[in-house]
């Protein structure tokens, strides 16, 4: 089975290289058969890459330690359920996973694109297959997950203990999928540009669709990563501005700018050059993420998939960036906008400002992430930039983005009069001011937090007031309220799907503001029977139970927690030490409510019975995790295919009429 996988890898590499070459040559020479052949070759790649993937999974299930990757990432003690996690737990396996995802998404995207835009598709196919060829070269030349060992060990080294968590079934594959999927909208935009169609807008629908799907996957990946960090890393937080976290955030920021900006191109024929710049930026940042994740020179707490192959990813990133800029230079003349800005007070103007801010946050994050490299080069000393820098610089930018998120949808396209702006914003602004007043009265007086909460109130009021007005409007034509509300949403899916996403972002922001400004933390040393107190909670430490397993020593603490005199229950945080890895894994116990999380995590157990706990009360974190499903629903709702209204479907008729004439 392993040998079949090996053979299939070699065939896949050759086919990917052929597909890239045939697609580019076919596109350049306008040879339909050749480019179609390249595309069909691309269609066969998911199957060719499924074979080595199945081989690898099979080797894990059978604990075939003659395969180096299996021996390095599993052992006899590993539960079978973690076979899937082990498959991408290391560098080689995760590269195979990336290649498979790229092959599958490429095939689906090319199929959808080829009917309307064969010339663009040929270039897009060439770009996607070039990327896949790169992965295949690395897999075969530097990180083959099916490589055999000369001597088969009796047992494997085991899986990294930090990965033995439910979140690992979803977070890494989703995150990796998101990063590699940026290639798809990139290839569509670049394909259109190379085919001389970048200044036309036919690619925009497909570009936006794949842009939104990619954005959703990246968002889910980031949120799952934050949730994993919160629940397993045991430091009480969810975001540390770690280089690997930043490397996932940066392409997300660029993609967020892109999915907004491309709407302006669709509606107004504007920002054609800008959109190409944005997608090149997103693609480059996604590659930067892979570079940092796989052996980049920046220190990170994430040990996952570390390797010494950073230079390969850096080289490919440099090559694709230079090639993209050259193509942009070549086709810049075809990318002129159809129209210009009518007014500074318009939705497109807000989108542009928002775009610039997204890129500013991305650049600040990039600078903070790579700063250690420059500091080392300049003074032989690695200086890392911590959370205070990112919070201080990015905080105001992100807050301004949330303000624009509230203002933008309330302004019309093209132009808004001052009276219109005042009318659209009067209730949201009033709600923001009222929220600030209420918070001050409640004693929540930190100016930055009050401002941030007020902005959230403003955005929510803007969204909800429009929903109410829209429902009332439909009611006037005789529809009962629930039906009117349902139809308002269902018949304007992209618009209201976007609003649902914005509501989810506000929920996320509320959680981030609450936990950033009002989190309370204390480290405590307790003996069995001792009671500790923090922010209205009291907790009695009953003791610790130590259990020896084949691969770890687990110490589970037991605490009874009270709040306001009533017993909330028993909490059992634990700490496990894996001697083979010399890694301690702590798992916090969390009691989560919409108001706040009570979070307790052990950091040390002494032989004399003393235990050291870190105890936190994190307000409003619950809202962050609750925003995830809402965000998902919003995007799917907005993207769900909708029957085209009568006037638009007349286009086909008009064109047919024109053709007959």
């Amino acid at each position, binding site marked *: 089975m392993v040998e079949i996988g090996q053979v299939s890898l070699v065939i896949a590499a050759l086919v990917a290289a052929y597909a890239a070459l045939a697609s580019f040559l076919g596109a350049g020479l306008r040879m339909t058969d050749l480019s*179609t*052949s390249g595309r*069909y070759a691309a269609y066969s790649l998911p199957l060719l890459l499924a074979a080595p993937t199945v081989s690898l999974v099979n080797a894990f299930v059978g604990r075939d330690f003659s395969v180096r990757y299996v021996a390095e990432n599993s052992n006899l003690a590993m539960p079978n359920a973690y076979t899937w996690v082990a498959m991408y737990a290391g560098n080689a396996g995760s590269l195979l996973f990336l290649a498979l995802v790229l092959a599958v998404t490429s095939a689906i995207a090319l199929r959808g694109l080829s009917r309307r*835009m064969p010339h663009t598709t040929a270039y897009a196919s060439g770009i996607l297959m070039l990327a896949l060829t790169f992965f295949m070269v690395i897999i075969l030349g530097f990180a083959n997950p099916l490589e055999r060992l000369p001597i088969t060990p009796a047992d494997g080294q085991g899986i990294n203990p930090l990965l033995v968590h439910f979140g690992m079934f979803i977070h890494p594959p989703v995150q990796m999928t998101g990063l590699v999927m940026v290639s798809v909208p990139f290839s569509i935009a670049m394909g259109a540009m190379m085919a001389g169609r970048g200044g*036309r807008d036919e690619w925009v629908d497909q570009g936006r669709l794949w842009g939104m799907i990619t954005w959703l996957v990246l968002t889910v990946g980031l949120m799952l990563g934050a949730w994993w960090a919160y629940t397993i890393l045991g430091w009480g937080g969810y975001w540390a501005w770690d280089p690997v976290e930043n490397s996932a955030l940066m392409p997300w920021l660029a993609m967020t700018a892109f999915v907004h900006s491309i709407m302006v191109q669709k509606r107004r*024929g504007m920002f054609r050059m800008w959109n190409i710049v944005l997608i090149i930026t997103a693609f480059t940042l996604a590659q930067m993420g892979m570079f940092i994740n796989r052996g980049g020179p920046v220190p990170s707490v994430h040990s996952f998939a570390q390797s010494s192959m950073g230079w390969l990813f850096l080289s490919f990133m440099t090559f694709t960036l230079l090639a993209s800029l050259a193509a942009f230079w070549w086709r810049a003349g075809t990318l002129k906008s159809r129209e210009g800005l009518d007014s500074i007070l318009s939705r497109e103007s807000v989108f542009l400002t928002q775009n610039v801010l997204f890129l500013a946050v991305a650049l600040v994050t990039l600078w903070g992430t790579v700063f250690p490299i420059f500091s080392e080069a300049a003074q032989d000393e690695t200086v890392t930039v911590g959370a205070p820098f990112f919070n201080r610089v990015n905080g105001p930018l992100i807050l301004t983005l949330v303000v624009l998120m509230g203002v933008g949808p309330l302004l*019309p396209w093209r132009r808004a009069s001052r009276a219109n702006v005042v009318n659209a914003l009067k209730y949201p602004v009033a709600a923001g001011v009222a929220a600030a007043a209420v918070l001050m009265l409640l004693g929540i007086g930190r100016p930055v937090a009050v401002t941030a909460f007020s902005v959230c109130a403003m955005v929510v009021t803007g969204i909800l007031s429009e929903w109410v007005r*829209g429902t009332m409007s439909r009611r006037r*034509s005789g529809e009962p309220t629930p039906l009117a509300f349902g139809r308002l949403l269902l018949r304007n899916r992209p618009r209201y799907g976007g609003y649902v996403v914005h509501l989810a972002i506000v929920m996320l922001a509320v959680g981030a503001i609450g936990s950033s400004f009002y989190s309370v933390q204390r480290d405590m040393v307790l003996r069995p029977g001792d009671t500790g107190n923090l922010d209205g909670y009291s907790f009695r430490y009953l003791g610790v139970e130590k259990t020896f397993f084949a691969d770890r020593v687990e110490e589970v603490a037991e605490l009874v927690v009270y709040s306001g005199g009533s017993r909330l229950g028993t909490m059992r945080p634990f700490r496990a030490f894996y001697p083979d890895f010399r890694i301690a894994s702590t798992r916090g116990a969390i009691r989560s409510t919409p108001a706040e999380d009570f979070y307790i995590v052990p950091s040390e157990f002494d032989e004399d019975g003393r235990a050291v706990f870190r105890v936190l009360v994190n307000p409003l974190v619950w809202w962050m995790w609750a925003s995830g499903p809402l965000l998902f629903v919003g995007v799917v709702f907005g993207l769900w295919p909708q029957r085209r209204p009568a006037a638009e479907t007349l*286009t086909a008729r008009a064109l047919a009429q024109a053709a007959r004439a």
Partner: protein
Amino acid sequence: MLVFMAFALALIPALAIAYPFLTRAGRPLLSDEDTTASEVSARWEAAIAGLRTTELEWAVGNLAEEDREWLRERYMTDAALALREMEVGDAEERALMATVEREMKRVRAQAGDGE
């Protein structure tokens, strides 16, 4: 067995690669849809979408009457120009614009059935 499986695996992409050459039937030169038609079509669709959004924004109270009139005029002009470029006959053009008017009236009345 390995040789047989390798052959079977290689056969799939080989057939996929060869298929377009084996079935060639004088395919036209590789090109996307007709540029002028799709460009005009995009402008028509953008104008109609703009009109619909304008009516929806007005119906839900986001748009002042003055702005609505200004936007309507712009989008109607865009739509008419697009139709003119499609070289649609006068009667068809009138029919299309009348349909657009009806559609907008419905959107106005029902706060936008489809943006």
